[in-house]
């Protein structure tokens, strides 16, 4: 035992070259981000993520050719938008039905996204479920803005049932609906072959129409 272990325990002078060095990857930004995001201050993380979310809002509002929305999807934007929309839409509800109305918007959003995504996948589109939910949620921003505008316009007092304000509110929601459709057509229409594009876009049309209808309903309290 001792003789076996002796060469190990004594310092070796038999010409083993000691190799020293550092193992580092060639530094590009993403690698250093991946390695060091754990140590950075929380404010930096929040700023970076919020910046990504707002940048995606920008892409959804002014549709440009970019792969950011599809490839770096995240669900923060849809969550914020749907929650805000649900709170806005139940502000004139009675006490008992408020919770149910809040849940209705969420359920509609969820089931609608699932139906649209499964439909586009079944027709052969190359888009994953979360990418599609991300795009559908971000493109909801114009409709949310129209709900805000409608809420503000509701405070202007009016006497008759069908007044010019009703028509203005209806037109505002319709304009926002057209904007939303244009934005989502830019993103989701490209993922499909041209001879099936209308088949994929029609459920998206129905989905946003239902949400626009909910917003219009909210603008006409009796």
């Amino acid at each position: 035992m001792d003789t076996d272990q002796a060469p190990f325990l004594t310092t070796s002078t038999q010409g083993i070259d000691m190799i020293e060095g550092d193992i580092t990857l060639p530094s590009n930004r993403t690698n250093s981000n991946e390695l060091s995001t754990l140590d950075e201050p929380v404010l930096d993380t929040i700023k970076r993520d919020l910046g990504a979310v707002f940048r995606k809002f920008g892409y959804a509002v002014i549709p440009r050719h970019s792969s950011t929305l599809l490839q770096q999807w995240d669900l923060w934007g849809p969550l914020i938008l749907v929650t805000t929309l649900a709170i806005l839409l139940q502000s004139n509800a009675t006490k008992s039905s408020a919770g149910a109305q809040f849940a209705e918007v969420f359920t509609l959003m969820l089931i609608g996204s699932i139906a649209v995504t499964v439909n586009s996948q079944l027709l052969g589109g190359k888009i994953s479920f979360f990418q599609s939910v991300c795009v559908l949620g971000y493109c909801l921003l114009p409709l949310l803005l129209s709900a805000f505008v409608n809420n503000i316009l509701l405070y202007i007092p009016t006497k008759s049932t069908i007044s010019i304000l009703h028509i203005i509110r209806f037109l505002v929601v319709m304009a926002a609906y057209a904007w939303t459709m244009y934005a989502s057509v830019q993103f989701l229409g490209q993922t499909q072959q041209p001879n099936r594009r209308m088949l994929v876009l029609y459920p998206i049309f129905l989905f946003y129409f239902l949400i626009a209808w909910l917003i219009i309903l909210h603008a006409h309290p009796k």
Partner: protein
Amino acid sequence: MMFSNDGFLTDKTSSSNSGQTHVFTSFPNSAVDPDDEHFGNQSSDTDKLVLPLPATATDAKPEQSYVWQIEYYQKYFQIDTQQVLERLAASVTPRPNKSYFDSTIRQNPDLYGPFWVCITFIVTVGISGNIVNYFHLPDVEFQIDFSRITLSAILVCLYWWLMPTFIYFFFRWRLNRIEYTFLELLCLYGYSLAIFIPVSVLWIIPINWLQWTLTFIASLVSGSVLVVTFWPTINSDHKRLSAISMLVVLLAHLLMAVCIMFVFFHISDSNINPKSVTTLATTTLSSMSTLTATTTTTATITPKTA
């Protein structure tokens, strides 16, 4: 495990090869580096593709897809926009000599059209019913009543699935012929609901005779398309049985339209409470379902006596 001469802890079997370099000769495709300059010279030559393709591209047999994968259901959705529009147009034009079924659906039954026609029908009925409530009933809140929409959704989807089931089993057991697969029947019935979508928008107009006229015309047109499709198959049997069964198909179509109209749109002289309309609709539904059950049983009994 023992200590070798170098002082490293090795396995006994490999201690003899401790001085050699190992050369790997068999390696997976992914280990080939496309940037390797050995392959760079030949990359312009397209005949000899030295970069090995991934395994699935050269796989000759199709991958087996399972029930829980999307690809399993893709075969029901092989359809283009043009074909869907053709089938929608053909579902409202009954042509006695040329069956649109043979020319359009038989080669390629799909589930896209029927499903989205049903959903659109439910959506338009819900929205139009909402508008009717807003204009004609003074004390109803202008909110979407999800209970009635759920009722109509269940009614329409049940109709879309139950009628093909009845007809399929009727053909199979009564006539002993499987002329139409279940998928083709589903497709047929789904497209036959397409005419009710513009009709449901027109149902908003609160004129009583107009609503009834629309109901009759729409269910006659789409029912006749169904009858024309089934007629060649069923004509070979007893005349009385074939007539009764076609009548049952027409009546079921009419019944569905009338139920939708009553639940959502019917304006009568008295002030209709929405809750009572819903209970009325459910009681008529249950009574009508027992009635159709008795008519089908009598239809099966009478040929034995005839």
